[in-house]
């Protein structure tokens, strides 16, 4: 796979309103698999996106689209194979000391998918939260830590906070545990919270409460959020901007309402048609059985072409570049978003 031309597309580099908290440029992550035979799995390829201040960006895609790999790259769990991540203007590659990495992690914490296994069952919520504070906010003394823990628990709606601190995870419901996850993240005074499928394990009646909480954190605490999900309806509900991934590529991005009402990429259209909505007519056939993307040694070409209803010849040997279709709305498709400039 050669260097993708995505970075040279008119989409990147265009000034967008707001200041970027975090930006990725041609971010790439490959995994070597298959031992001696030496196959390469392209989890993320030439992925360029930005997250502005006080913005919720939804990263949408199905299993195997690379969205969780993006989250782990941003959380510095994985090292990128190529490309660059810039946090508030500074490339992450420049972070050298443990202190700098720790400082980054406290500004960009992660909330995990499974609230049942992400909290230590043998310690109280207070123990877990105060330890995190001790590590990430060394300037606070004991009473300040206690006060901070209570304050963030109240901010996520766990009241009375003093009681919540004394509880063990098993004494809490899934929704409450996930709130603890957000409170923990919040206590580090973050700039950006990475939330990887934070509500998919929760009951439907509780999900909306968490989504509302995310919007409140943006409005009241001024944090940005990357909301990773496969549920495009909840993405619309909570996010300002939507980024759609398929097979490691960014295929479409733009303001949520714009992307949902005028989807350009055939994959986005397919995703939207698959959303179960009792208020709408059913519009999908069983023809597309939802095969996972082929990302092992994918070569050139659009990765959606195997499933695409409008694929043409060129799709099988040229990777489509991200092209602007309307203000702040980009898509990577040879057919639907015919490049205007090239």
């Amino acid at each position, binding site marked *: 796979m050669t260097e993708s031309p995505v970075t040279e597309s008119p989409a990147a580099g265009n000034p967008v309103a707001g200041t970027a908290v975090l930006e990725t440029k041609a971010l790439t992550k490959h995994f070597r698999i298959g031992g001696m035979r030496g196959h390469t799995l392209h989890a993320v390829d030439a992925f360029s996106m930005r997250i502005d201040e006080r913005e919720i960006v939804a990263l949408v895609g199905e299993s195997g689209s690379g969205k969780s790999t993006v989250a782990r790259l941003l959380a510095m769990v994985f090292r990128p194979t190529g490309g660059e991540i810039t946090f508030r203007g500074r490339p992450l590659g420049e972070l050298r000391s443990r202190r700098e990495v720790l400082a980054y992690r406290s500004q960009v914490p992660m909330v995990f998918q499974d609230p049942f296994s992400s909290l230590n069952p043998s310690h109280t919520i207070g123990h877990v939260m105060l330890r995190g504070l001790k590590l990430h906010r060394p300037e606070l003394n004991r009473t300040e830590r206690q006060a901070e823990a209570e304050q963030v628990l109240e901010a996520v709606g766990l009241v009375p906070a003093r009681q919540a601190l004394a509880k063990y995870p098993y004494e809490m419901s899934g929704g409450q545990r996930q709130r603890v996850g957000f409170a923990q993240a919040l206590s580090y005074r973050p700039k950006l919270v990475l939330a990887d499928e934070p509500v998919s394990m929760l009951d439907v*009646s509780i999900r909306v409460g968490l989504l509302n909480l995310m919007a409140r954190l943006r409005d009241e605490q001024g944090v940005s959020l990357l909301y990773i999900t496969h549920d495009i309806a909840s993405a*619309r509900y909570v996010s300002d901007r939507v980024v759609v991934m398929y097979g490691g590529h960014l295929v479409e991005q733009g303001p949520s309402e714009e992307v949902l009402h005028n989807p350009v990429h055939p994959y986005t259209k397919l995703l939207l048609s698959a959303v179960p909505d*009792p208020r709408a007519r059913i519009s999908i056939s069983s023809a597309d059985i*939802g095969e996972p993307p082929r990302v092992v040694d994918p070569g050139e070409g659009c990765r959606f072409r195997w499933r695409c209803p409008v694929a043409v010849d060129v799709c099988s040997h040229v990777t489509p570049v991200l092209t602007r279709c309307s203000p702040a709305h980009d898509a990577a498709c040879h057919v639907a978003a015919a490049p205007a400039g090239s």
Partner: protein
Amino acid sequence: MADAILEVRELSVEYLTRGEPAHAVEKVSFDLSPGEFLGIVGESGCGKSTLLFAIAQLLSPPAQISAGEVVFKGRNMVQMTDRQLRTVRWKDYSVVMQSAMNALNPVKSIAAQFGDAMEAHGTRSKVTIAARSREVLALVGIDPVHLESFPHQLSGGMRQRAMIAMALLFSPELVVMDEPTSALDVVAQRSLMVQIKELQRELGFAIIFVTHDMSLVSHFSDRLVVMYAGQVAELGPTAEVFDDPLHPYTIGLLEAFPSIHGPKVHLEGVPGSPPDLSALPSGCHFHPRCAKAMPLCSSVEPALYTIGDRHVRCLLHQGDGTCSE
């Protein structure tokens, strides 16, 4: 309904614990007609999977049926011995489990697993087994070459389809499904639902489909059961339940789904969380979370009131209908 294929009568299931037994299912009754698609929805811990296991006679201790009947084709299955059940299971009714990822044996090929199921139920001929295996696999849209495949060589969607194919080996009259699509992506989920419906139309089996995702069954089920804290909160034709939900819990559930159509509206969901089944609230089990709760709700337990062909367990509808309990 005299021609019902399945009648569930006042079925109750308890989990025996050291303290108070947990009432996972409480006096659930409904009929299922041949070829009907019944959806059962509810949150985790509402007893929907326990109900399904009780119907399929698959409960194991500490869960046990404490009262009620499950009459399948005229015979009460609760009274049957394991030996008697074996003649009915898989041949007349089959089960599709939630995690197809783990429900298939990882060290046996699909053909071997299909063969095992058929041999266990008396099919000896290798030729018949091979032919039928190919037939059912083709039915669910998988190329029969995959009979020689092992589960890890199939995608999640294909494994789930293989499970459904296995459930159809003997052309049962009832297929019981426990969240068969919950591990799949939205697109795969949707196409599997369409395919299940097509298979049903073609082969005419009845389906009981348990899910936590109400909108998933909205286009497919004929009738819908909404469960809360082990009880039927509402039961009625799917379209009517969606268009005009009666129970405040159903209304809350419907309002908890963000839509991709129409204007963006603020949603609230249902505040609070489901109750502990061994310490249920007094009166109506839903009253602590209910937006329309009245003083009466905390002391009087509502019965299931019948309004036409709909049933609802809520005191607000006490005057509208007749009591069926």
